[in-house]
Every structure is written in structure tokens, then in C-alpha cells.
């Protein structure tokens, strides 16, 4: 206990730690934002394909294509993140030129999260009122217009919620990535907690992650609710 207390005091008196945490916050935020943005876009496109290309969708696609798409998404979703990351790190080398650090973690995060997001968004899009889609068809909307002007705007609150969930999931994946060379608060927590037996630093780093999650959830929840015109 004495050791923990002295470690705690050290954190607040040594500039080195402050810097470590500030860097951690920045790296975590940065890699999560970038990964979420890209993964969400990919996931959104996949989800639209899944919904629109369905056999009762607004623009049915050939069944083999839909089957293949579903299988790939399911496989990517079922591989544990850390294993997926080991595979995708080679891709990181090609894309961002390194296999370690914050940047290196971004491609695996995207590959891991996009299929998950695709399913999340798919569920929301499927809940678009069929009658509204029908009304749009009766007005002469093309399938693209139905997606762009009906489904996505009508699902906006659900999409904002999905985005928030994605952000938080990627944040936690990113913390895990710290174990195998990723950067950010996850790395700090694992380095100090696991290898240097510094429980205080681990605790603070973990608390910071929790706080980031809380902030993201609060903002996301608020925006989703505010954008929903059905509630007023």
C-alpha cells in the first residue's frame, strides 16, 4: 500500500508522467477518431449493400454476391481482435510504414471494427418504416435516392447511436492493441501495470480511458436524442 501511495505521489510530482498521460490521451483519441471515421464509412457502405441488395431490398443484388458478403463479414467478426491484429499488421507496414505505434494500430482497428459496424448499421437501416420507403418508390425515387434521401436521414438518430457505440468499441480495441505495440493509454496501462509493476500508473491510465468512454457516450447520446424529431 505504501508503494502504491508513493507511486501515486510520484505521478503528480513528476512531469514525465504528466507528459506520458497527455500523450496517451492524444494518441488514443486520435487513433480512435481516425479509425472510427474510416471504419464507420466502410461499415455504412457494407450495411447499405446488405439492406439494399437483400432479396426484398430496394435494389436486389445477385444472391451469390450477398452470400459472399455475409460470409466475409461473419468471418471477420468471429476472429478474435488480437489475432486479427497480428495478421493485419503486415497491412499496416504497407499502408503506414510501421508495425508498431499508434498509427500501426489504425488499419487493424478499421478491419476489425468495420464488419461489426456493418451489422450494427444494418439493423438500424432495416428498421426504416417500409411504408415510407414505399411512399418514396411511389413518388418515383431511384434506389440511390431512397438510400440517400430516405433511409439514411430517417435513421439519423440510430446512426448517431451506432457511431457512438463504434467509437467506444474501437477505443477499447485500441487499448487492447497496446499489448502488441499499439500506442495510447492502453500501452501506458499495460507497460506500467504489467511490466513495471506500477499499479498507480495503470489505475490512472485506465481511469482516463473510462472517462473518455463516458464523455463519448454522453455526447453521442445527447446528439442522437437531439436529432430525433420523433420525440417532440
Amino acid at each position, binding site marked *: 500500500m505504501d508503494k502504491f501511495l508513493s507511486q501515486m505521489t510520484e505521478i503528480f510530482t513528476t512531469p514525465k508522467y504528466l507528459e506520458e498521460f497527455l500523450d496517451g490521451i492524444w494518441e488514443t483519441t486520435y487513433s480512435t477518431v481516425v479509425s472510427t471515421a474510416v471504419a464507420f464509412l466502410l461499415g455504412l457502405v457494407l450495411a447499405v449493400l446488405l439492406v439494399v441488395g437483400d432479396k426484398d431490398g430496394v435494389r436486389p443484388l445477385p444472391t451469390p454476391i450477398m452470400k459472399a458478403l455475409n460470409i466475409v463479414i461473419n468471418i471477420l467478426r468471429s476472429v478474435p481482435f488480437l489475432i486479427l491484429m497480428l495478421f493485419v499488421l503486415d497491412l499496416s507496414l504497407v499502408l503506414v510504414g510501421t508495425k508498431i505505434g499508434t498509427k500501426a494500430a489504425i488499419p487493424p482497428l478499421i478491419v476489425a471494427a468495420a464488419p461489426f459496424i456493418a451489422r450494427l448499421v444494418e439493423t438500424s437501416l432495416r428498421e426504416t418504416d417500409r*411504408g415510407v420507403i414505399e411512399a418514396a*418508390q411511389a*413518388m*418515383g*425515387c431511384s434506389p440511390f435516392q431512397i438510400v440517400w434521401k430516405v433511409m439514411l436521414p430517417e435513421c439519423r438518430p440510430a446512426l448517431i447511436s451506432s457511431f457512438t457505440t463504434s467509437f467506444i468499441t474501437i477505443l477499447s480495441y485500441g487499448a487492447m492493441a497496446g499489448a502488441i505495440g499499439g500506442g495510447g493509454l492502453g500501452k501506458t496501462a499495460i507497460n506500467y501495470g504489467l511490466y513495471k509493476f506500477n499499479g498507480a500508473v495503470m489505475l490512472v491510465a485506465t481511469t482516463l480511458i473510462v472517462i473518455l468512454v463516458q464523455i463519448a457516450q454522453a455526447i453521442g447520446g445527447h446528439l442522437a436524442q437531439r*436529432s430525433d424529431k420523433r*420525440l*417532440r
Partner: protein
Amino acid sequence: MIRLEHVSKTFSGQNEVHAVRDVSLHIAPGEIFGIIGFSGAGKSTLVRCINLLERPTQGKVFVDGLELTALGEKALRQERKKMGMIFQQFNLLMQRNCLDNICFPMEIAGVSRGRARKQAMELLELVDLPDKAGAYPAQLSGGQKQRVAIARSLASDPKVLLCDEATSALDPQSTRAILRLIQKINRETGITVVVITHEMTVVEEICHKVAILDHGEMVETGRVEDIFSNPQTDAGRRLVYPDGVALEQLPTGRVVRVAFNGNSSYEPLVASLAMDCGVKVNILGADTRSIDGKAFGTMLLGLPQDGTEAARALAYLKGQANVTVEEVRDYHG
């Protein structure tokens, strides 16, 4: 304006459903045409065949001289822009306010934002909701939502308005108001209207012509007053006289329905029946309806048990001008 030629629609599945069977009909420009039938009769399927939301498995659909069933997707979308449609569940975009909902079809048609908004405001005036431009559908009552939906359906300046149970989710008062509005629009713009409903009152209120659909088949069609005063089929009778009297409870023998076209009324007839041929009949029920401004009365008469008296009464009734008489056999309500 609308012509269906031998249109059939069969839904395939584990068990096939013949939702529409060989329906042919012609709807003239400017007409308000009712399609009535019981639930599951295929009304929605039929009206959806008109704008090809549902592709008929057989037959041809013509709108304004153009065969829609022969068009490709793109050309069909173009034609759909010339047809408005309103629904039982309104189907407004919940995340757009009223004004933007009305702008939607114009947006699709590529009308500039400024012009669309201006026209949308005019349409809101037309449906009597000018102060609801910024309101969201969730903030409106059912009747108001349907008004917005009507305004939206008119935004593309259509030649045809399809209404699928447009008033079925509304209370009687809103129903009347919506029907009045449709009638007014029809009179002012000459738009052709197809009204799908399971309520005879809706047809009576605004339709010029009506078709009765039963189990996917069109069993009767004609002018509303003709169908109303003298329905020929079982389905027609059940629709026109929805609440009958159970036959078992009747104290008398045969039951006839007497319908008056136009101005005659029933009390003098019953009196003269008693005086002229000495037969007393029971009035089991009477009802007056107004169709397109004219009054139509119907009356259910229970004839005496005695066969000869009954025959005399029947002959007398049949001899009256402006009256149609018909025997009711299966009056079980």
C-alpha cells in the same frame, strides 16, 4: 385515364395467393373511382398494380394512354412522378418537417429549392395547415398528417391520385374533412382519384363510380347510386347493408329490401300498401343515405307469413315507379 386489362396478381410462396384475379376496368379522367371490398379482398394489391408498386403477374396497365407494364424501371419512375399516392399510415418522413416533406417529391424531380419551398407553402395553404410548416409529423394529429400527405402527393402536380384506405386510421370527423378536401381538389384540378376503402360511407360521400372487389375478383362495377340502390352480388349486398337483422329473430316469413331512387319516401308506400291491397307488413329497418347530394332510402320489410298475401304485397311493391324490390334470403348480418 386509367385502364386495367385482365390484371392478375398471384403471390407465390408455400401457398399461392391469388390476390387479384383478371380485373379489367376503366377510369375516366376527372373521375373519383372507389374500389371497395372486405379485408383481404385484394384492394391494396390492385391499387398498387396501378403504379406498379406491385407488378401484375398478368395483364396490362395503362395510365394516360401509356402502357406502364411495358416500361423499364427508369421510364416507370418518370411516370410514377405523375401519380400521387396517400396511405392509411400517412408514411411521412418523420425526420423532416412538414414543409420539407412536401418539398420531397419536388426535390426528387429536380425543382430548385426556392421554388419548391414556395409551392410547398401554397400547398400547405390548400390543405389548410399554413402554420404547420415547421412542425414535425410527430407533432401533428392523424388528420393533419393526412393533410400533409395529400399536399405532398400533389406537389409533383400529378394527374392521378391513389388513396389506399386514406381515412381508415381517422375518426369520423377527420374522415369527412379529408374526403371533403379530396373532393375539392378533384373539382378544382380535375385530377383523377382512385379511392380504396372498406367503408361504404366513404364511397357514398365522394365517389362517382365504384367497383366491388371480392376475393380478388371484381364482381360489380358501375355508378355509385346504381350499385347502392340495387347491389347484384352477395358481396355487394353485404357491403351496402353491413348491419342486417338476423333472420331467425324475424316474426314474419319472407323479407324484402325496398330501395327508393330519388325523391319518394317510404311511409306513404307502407300506408298505401295496407290500404290498396289490405296487407300489413313489418318495417324491420329503414335507412336514408345521401349520395352525391341525392337522397336514397332503403327499407327492410317483413312480409306476412301467409303466402298469397305475401305475393300480393310483392307484386304491389314491384309495380311502383322509382322503387326497386329485392328479396333477402340470407339475412344473417
